[in-house]
Every structure is written in structure tokens, then in C-alpha cells.
């Protein structure tokens, strides 16, 4: 194997499975910082992560609300995964590994928060909403706004896919689960966490 191949493999592992190298307290510290920074950046563009996989823009809210959304999403995903891990895995698990890696897996949403910053996204979102609710939309948008919005949506979609892939890898590594059992329990947790996080966020709104 050439050095270039080794380096590219290592890069791929850092991008799609960094948990091979980082877990536990280090991952928790890093992950929590990422969640808080994502909420902080998101607050400037009114970008809400109002559900484990959700990204929405528009609604103004106090800073603490943006920070709380990230924390709720993380906990709602990590706890069911830990319990499934306890049931399915043959290894002895550490909750700090599950919490840490799941927090770290949310880092693509930091990029999402950044690409959602331009005001053009909010303008296009408002335009689309007014088109859906009224016959004559009141908000006006420029072609550049549409370009920025389309670019942001492509990035957001890629980041959602990347984050789900990272969350799965985090689960597989921290709970030592592979194959059909891993996929099935992950999907159930993801759906459950999505519903639970939406409910919790709606309750604190």
C-alpha cells in the first residue's frame, strides 16, 4: 500500500469515522463545543435545529433557545442508542462514549449553520411560504437570493446525509454493534429521537 493510499484512507476515516480515533471525554468536550457553537452561529441567521434532523429558518428566538435545541437533539438521540446498545451489544459499554461520539457526530450542522447565515435564505423561505399560503406573494426576491438559497439547500442536504452517517458510525463504534441489528436499532432510535425531540422543543417553545 502506497503512502498516498494510506493518507487518503486515514482522511476518509477522519471524515466518516473519526470515532476510531476520538471517543470518551475528549469527544464529549469537542462535541458539546460544536453543538453550542452551531446554536450560537444559527441564532444570527435564525436557523433552528428543531429536531434531530431538522433545519428551519425564520423564527426569531432568544439565544438560549438555539443552544437548547442542539442539546435536546443530542440527548434525544444518544439515550435510546445507549439503551439499545445495552440490549444488543455483547461489549461492556461506557455511556460517555455514546454521549461523546453522538455529540461529535453533529458537527456537519455547524457548516449548516454557517451556510444558512445569509439573509437571502430567509427571504426565499418567506417568499415560498407566502406563495404556499397566498395567491399573490408579497415578499420580493432577487435572482441572487435564489442562487444562494439553492446552494444552501444542496449543502444542507449533504450535511444531513453526512451527519446521519456519522451518527451511525458513532453508534457502531461506541456500542460495538454491526450488521442488521445495528441498522435496525439505529433506524428505530432515529425515528423515535426525531419525534421525541420535536415534542420536547415544542413544549419549551
Amino acid at each position, binding site marked *: 500500500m502506497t503512502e498516498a493510499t494510506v493518507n487518503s484512507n486515514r482522511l476518509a476515516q477522519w471524515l466518516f469515522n473519526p*470515532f*476510531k*480515533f*476520538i*471517543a*470518551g471525554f475528549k*469527544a464529549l468536550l469537542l462535541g458539546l463545543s460544536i453543538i453550542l457553537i452551531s446554536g450560537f452561529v444559527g441564532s444570527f441567521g435564525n436557523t433552528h435545529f428543531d429536531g434531530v434532523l431538522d433545519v428551519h429558518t425564520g423564527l426569531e428566538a432568544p439565544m438560549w433557545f438555539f443552544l437548547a435545541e442542539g442539546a435536546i437533539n443530542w440527548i434525544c438521540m444518544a439515550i435510546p442508542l445507549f439503551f439499545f446498545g445495552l440490549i444488543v451489544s*455483547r*461489549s*461492556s459499554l*461506557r455511556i460517555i*462514549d455514546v454521549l461523546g*461520539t453522538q455529540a461529535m457526530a453533529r458537527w456537519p450542522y455547524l457548516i449548516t449553520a454557517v451556510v444558512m447565515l445569509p439573509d437571502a435564505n430567509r427571504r426565499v423561505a418567506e417568499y415560498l411560504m407566502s406563495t404556499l399560503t397566498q395567491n399573490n406573494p408579497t415578499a420580493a426576491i432577487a435572482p441572487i437570493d435564489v442562487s444562494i438559497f439553492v446552494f444552501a439547500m444542496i449543502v444542507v442536504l449533504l450535511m444531513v446525509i453526512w451527519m446521519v452517517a456519522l451518527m451511525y458510525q458513532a453508534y457502531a*463504534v*461506541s456500542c*460495538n454493534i454491526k450488521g442488521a441489528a445495528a441498522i435496525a436499532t439505529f433506524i428505530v432510535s432515529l425515528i423515535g429521537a426525531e419525534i421525541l425531540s420535536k415534542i420536547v422543543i415544542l413544549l419549551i417553545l
Partner: protein
Amino acid sequence: MKVLPTTCPSCSNQLNVKSLICESCQTEIQGQYELPLLSRLSFHDQDFIIEFIKASGSLKEMARLLGLSYPTVRNRLDEIIEHIKPAEKSRKEKKA
């Protein structure tokens, strides 16, 4: 370096040792001996076990030495345990 074959290339069953030789005086012992449990593991697994012993059986220390996370090292150890289990079971069955 030659790698010690542990399974039959024809039927994939466990290979046994038929003869041992003293390199110094060329005395040769013939018989049928089972390979020790750890010799049946892959080279990578054996390396891991040696490193694990050198790290005084500390997974945290192993993780630090190998530049890997704690669960990655623990998963690797669990994998080796799963490899050992069937060999250990068959050895116990033969003894009984």
C-alpha cells in the same frame, strides 16, 4: 517471514503439528500435537495481544499507544475473544 499456516488449505479444518525439530542437534520428534490456542490466531491478533500484555492489560494505555479511541481498542479485543471462543470450546470438548 513465513507465516505459520493454522488451517488446512483443502478443507479449512484446524491443522495440527506433526513434527518438531531441534535446530541445534537436528533431533526430530514426531507425533500429533494441537497448536496452542494463541498460535491459531492471526498475526495481527497475536500482535494485539502482545501489545495488550505490554500495556499491563490497560485498554486506555493501549488506546494511547496505538493512537486509537478506547471503544475501538475494546471492540478489537472483543473481536479476538470471539475468535478464541470456538477454539477453546473445541479444545474443552476434546479433553472431555
